[in-house]
């Protein structure tokens, strides 16, 4: 059953079966899940999720990188993991945000309500991605066209968060939030595809529970965020 992992495609960082070939150090708990028919990659991804979301919470509370909440960077991280080549994931993300930004200006004159506006934006982004994939195919970039549909859909739907941020906080702030989302997702991607971490989870799945005390600590952390040291640099210089 380990041989039929859908994520273990060529080129993907998440080649779990390779890591587990010797079947050494597999926790009895993991073995139990697998015996019950839960695919191994599902087990690993579900156990990595707490780590990714804790990372996002850490970025917000301690570093001060906001991104679009917790859901968006988490889901983009998993979309990246599900795409064989990271650069195509990043490319699709950038195209979605770029088209979303341009459409804001195009649709401004229409003065229409929020949901219809998001619907139009989503439709046009869907067309744009279709064009992107076919252009990729024409340029012999078969990897691009081979990206499965669910990660693509996930990336398209995050534009709603982007449009909402544009309306509430303005264009500049929305673009900054999008870049922050990309940064967190990339860090999350590299963390989640770090072989040592996956090996560790397989060997000691209970380890995941330490994310709970970490989050309790983060939730009570009232010190300055790292970016606030920059924001308030002039004040800090003046305090005696």
């Amino acid at each position, binding site marked *: 059953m380990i041989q039929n992992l859908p994520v273990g495609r060529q080129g993907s960082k998440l080649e779990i079966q390779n890591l587990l070939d010797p079947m050494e150090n597999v926790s009895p708990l993991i073995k139990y899940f697998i015996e019950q028919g839960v695919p191994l990659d599902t087990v690993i991804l579900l156990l990595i999720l707490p780590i990714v979301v804790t990372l996002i919470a850490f970025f917000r509370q301690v570093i001060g990188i906001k991104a679009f909440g917790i859901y968006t960077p988490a889901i983009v991280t998993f979309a990246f993991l599900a795409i064989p080549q990271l650069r195509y994931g990043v490319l699709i993300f950038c195209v979605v945000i770029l088209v979303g930004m341009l459409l804001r200006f195009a649709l401004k004159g229409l003065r229409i309500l929020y949901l219809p506006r998001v619907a139009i934006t989503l439709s046009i982004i869907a067309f744009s991605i279709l064009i992107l994939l076919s252009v990729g195919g024409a340029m012999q970039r078969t990897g691009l066209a081979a990206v499965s549909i669910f990660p693509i859909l996930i990336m398209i739907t995050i534009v709603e968060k982007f449009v909402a941020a544009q309306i509430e906080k303005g264009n500049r702030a929305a673009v900054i939030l999008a870049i922050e989302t990309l940064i967190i997702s990339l860090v999350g991607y590299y963390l989640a595809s770090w072989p040592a971490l996956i090996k560790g989870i397989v060997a000691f799945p209970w380890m995941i529970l330490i994310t709970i005390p970490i989050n309790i600590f983060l939730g009570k952390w009232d010190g300055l965020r790292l970016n606030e040291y920059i924001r*308030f640099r002039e004040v800090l210089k003046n305090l005696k």
Partner: protein
Amino acid sequence: MLEMLEIFKNGNKLLGMNARNLDYIRPYNRKRAKRLADDKILSKRMLKRGGIPVPKLLAKIKSVEELEDFDWTSLPSSFALKPNRGYGGGGILVVYGRKKPSRKDILKCEEGEIPQPVWVKSDGKTITVDDIKNHILNILDGAFSLANMPDIAFFEERLTLLKLFKPYAYKGIPDIRVIVFNRIPVMAMLRLPTKESGGKANLQQGGIGVGIDLATGVTTTAVLGKGNIIDYVPGTRMLLSGIKIPYWKEMLLLAVKAQEVSGMGFLGADVAIDRERGPVFLEINARPGLSIQVANLSGLKERLERIKGLKIKTAARGVRVGRDLFGGEVEEEVEEISGRKVIGTIEKIKLIGRNNKTVELEAKIDTGAGFTSIDTDLAEQLGFEDTVREYQKIESTYSDIIHLSKKERWSIYKHIPHLESTVVVNSASGSTYRPTIKITVVMDGVIIPTKVTLINRAHLKYPIIIGKRNLKKFLIDVSK
């Protein structure tokens, strides 16, 4: 390395997002109170009931039917149209005057019908009833409200710009943000709308924030947008520091009263000044921004922690505590620049007389007097009993001796012990001829050995006035 440690230590004095949300908003601002702050019409009513002046509510429109039935001629020539649950200044429409109907408009109308009014916006463009109707439809649909909830539109009296602020503000009305905690004003800034902010005073939109010294109401440092320190209004030579905000004490009082009414423990109060009405309360903010710390080059957390748990009974007392605790930056700065001390009109001083006899008391600062004068009783306390006794024996008045030569006059006084000299003093109550003695005055830490004139001041409130001759090292602040 040590410098890094220092920075992290100083970071403790600043209020960051985490601490604001966790330590102040969550424990001190209940949900119900926060909802009140988000509902402009409701908070306006509450504030008004609490005796706080607010912009007058002219009319509100809750539904499309109400919009259709609305009597447009009932509106004044200038007003502001706002969404009830708007945020960040979105969806606000301000008209500055009504356009006179042209002949054509009148001719178009049926006999006996009044033409529909037409208004003028800040950019000079006209706006018709149909335009306003369209805008209100958008407001009702929730185009400007949080989470696009259906909303109410309301018309409000337009505030007029104070002359003082005219050169500093681009369109719009500047306002003053005061952070209030535990009935004490903690920090304040003047917010100026700029071209970039589209006439809105919001810092996030690119407005200017100028720190204000809490004690004096004088502006200090200015910050543009979220972090750049500036000296002048961009593109002009208008210096942003040193502006004296009028009605300062009243505004602080309004801010504290609004906190009492709102039921929130920690808030940002926005007050504007109307040319006719004076201070007018704009709105309460349950989640005040943190850039005010940059505008004041000072940390909020340090200040908040100092007043946590203080029992403040009245708003006036809270204002006094805030001004005493957190004011004074400007004063120190003025003292630094001028090399002189800033004192009030009444100042605590110490006098040193003969044999190091000292008296501490309050003195009146009198820039109309040349010499410092002290009461005869006070002179006795300072060890000049003999001098006073002999002086009081002399009965000759000013008119008796004015025609005498200097030498002859001196001969009348010269036997008095410890006498320094004699002088003519012209005062409001007529001219007098007075002896002087030598003492030392210590005022605000400055030691001044000086001659002072002797006079009977028993009928006056202060036994000593400090005259111009001894004030060269001081600046006098009459509001102190």
